[in-house]
């Protein structure tokens, strides 16, 4: 009996020694679904290069931030940067932009392929002030397009969402009516239409519902082959959400902590509903019994995401790569991240 016990114990010790030997670290993150298609590819690439595994749960930006606040993840993904108030309630964090993307206005309309929309028309559609597809303001923007005499069915998010934040942030900037009645936020009281959970949910409803219109992360519209509108920017150009048009939106001044909205950019050729998407980590990485290896792996992952190789993946999956100066700022910010007060990156 004793002998068996001994050998079992020995094998346990052996196994645990072997486990310590390899330097696999498993990182976990949670948050935005908007950049999920980009992250899926990047994390896989990263795992094949470094032995570190990354598990990311697409539970929405709001949920990701809450998980970070509860200190149960290594990083949170979010399409909305933390407000000053949220920052004050948490230990100091670092925002690292990972790529740029567009929120597209997708629609399901028989026989209409290129719809043109302006900001105030989008706001009025979602506020229920433009009810019919053949409304004269829509017709004026789309000369020569045959718009049906059908009721517009807006589709929005039922869960808290960074995509909703970016979209309503844009509407708040372009429509005083929207700013005063609904405002910007991760959850907004849309007055009519129907709601679905997550970007895939909204894309699914639009795809399945005639005469509907909704907002989704661009990749979700591409993946389901749903048409999306050209949106008028500040210069009066109607712009499609291409990589170049999204990049153009970030040509303005970027603050040192990268917390800024780039919707309604005044740059030429800029797609107006563009956004950075961020990974948010704690400045002091020693929390919830995390090891130094985990902290190092977290930074290593972020460094990889900022590298040219990962940024090239961004444009392949219909996001836009970060501008050089944003990468520069982010690398500087990463150097301020510490473990037990000692800077991790040298």
């Amino acid at each position, binding site marked *: 009996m004793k002998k068996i016990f001994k050998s079992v114990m020995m094998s346990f010790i052996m196994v645990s020694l072997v486990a310590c030997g390899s330097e696999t670290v498993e990182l976990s993150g949670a948050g935005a679904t908007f950049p999920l298609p980009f992250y899926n590819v990047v994390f896989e690439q990263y795992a094949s290069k470094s032995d570190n595994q990354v598990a990311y749960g697409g539970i929405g930006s*709001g949920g990701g931030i*809450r998980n970070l606040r509860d200190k149960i993840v290594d990083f949170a993904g979010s399409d909305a940067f933390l407000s000053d108030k949220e920052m004050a309630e948490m230990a100091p964090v670092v925002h690292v932009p990972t790529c740029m993307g567009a929120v597209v206005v997708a629609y399901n309309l028989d026989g209409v392929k290129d719809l043109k929309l302006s900001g105030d028309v989008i706001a009025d559609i979602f506020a229920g002030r433009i009810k019919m597809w053949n409304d004269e303001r829509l017709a004026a923007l789309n000369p020569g397009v045959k718009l049906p005499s059908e009721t517009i*069915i807006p589709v929005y998010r039922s869960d808290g969402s960074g995509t909703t934040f970016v979209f309503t942030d844009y509407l708040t900037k372009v429509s005083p009516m929207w700013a005063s009645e609904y405002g910007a936020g991760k959850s907004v*009281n849309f007055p009519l239409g129907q709601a*679905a959970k997550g970007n895939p949910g909204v894309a699914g*409803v639009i795809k399945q519902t*005639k*005469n509907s219109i909704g907002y989704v992360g661009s990749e979700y519209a591409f993946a389901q082959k749903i048409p999306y509108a050209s949106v008028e920017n500040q210069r009066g150009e109607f712009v499609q959400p291409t990589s170049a048009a999204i990049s153009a939106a970030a040509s303005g001044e970027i603050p040192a902590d990268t917390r800024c909205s780039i919707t309604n950019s005044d740059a030429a050729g800029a797609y107006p509903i563009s956004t950075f998407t961020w990974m948010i980590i704690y400045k002091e990485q020693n929390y919830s019994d995390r090891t130094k290896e985990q902290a190092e792996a977290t930074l290593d992952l972020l460094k990889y995401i900022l590298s040219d190789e990962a940024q090239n993946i961004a444009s392949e999956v219909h996001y836009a790569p970060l501008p050089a100066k944003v990468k520069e700022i982010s690398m500087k910010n990463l150097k301020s991240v510490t473990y037990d007060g000692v800077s991790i990156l040298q």
Partner: protein
Amino acid sequence: MNDKIYKNLLFVAALIMPIVCGGIVYALVTDAYEAFEHFGFFKFLTSSEWNYTQGAEQYGALPFITGTLMTTLLALIFCIPFSLPVALFVGEYFKGTKVASVLSTVTDLLAGIPSIIYGLWGFYTLRPLIMAMNISPQGSSILTASLVLSIMIIPYAASLSAEFIKMVPNDLKEGAYSLGATRAEVIRKVVFPVAGSGIFSSYILAIGRALGETMTVTMLIGNTNNIPDSITSTGNSMASIIANQFGEADDLRLSSLIAIGLVLFMITAIINLIGKIMIKRARIA
């Protein structure tokens, strides 16, 4: 000695269930307290506003209570014409035959299908049908959710009702036949009165199931936080608002969602209790 250990083990096992249940209630009440304190218990139940705007936050459960009760009630109404004939077929007309056992197996199988599959079927098959028939332009509605819910609860109602119908004593039926009653008359005048409260209680249990259904309803109801003005308009149910919004809720909003959970728990508990009492009565009769 052995006996004592065994007895104690059983005692501990039996104690765990009430503790778990009590713990859930305790956690729900403490976490929901903030919302009830802020809005007042009755105001929370009767307010129809669900407003996230910071500073003007206002949460009321009425739209979700209405949505849940409407879908459940409609599902019950739609389910009766299907589940009652199945119960009669299995429990009376073809009692003990092969056909009956095949039918009851197939019906029970419906209970084993995961709710996400009902949701997918509803979303990709039923919803376009509702749109094509011009019943509701947006497809998602209280009606769509209720139709799928009704199919989901058929097995619960049908198999239990069949058991109660089988339990009707043969002497009673034979007595009626000997007096020249037709089969339809026997069912109407003997089977239903005798098995009535049992059948009623099986529908109560089916309702309990419909009340808490989350995934299917979320996919089909449209998720709008208003009181639905007709059965073809969109709405939201108590279970689905919790599933949709708990992820990013905190403070008052989280407390309000938990309060909705508590209300749902209470409604389900009361309905199940009614069912249990009716079953007891059926056994005594």
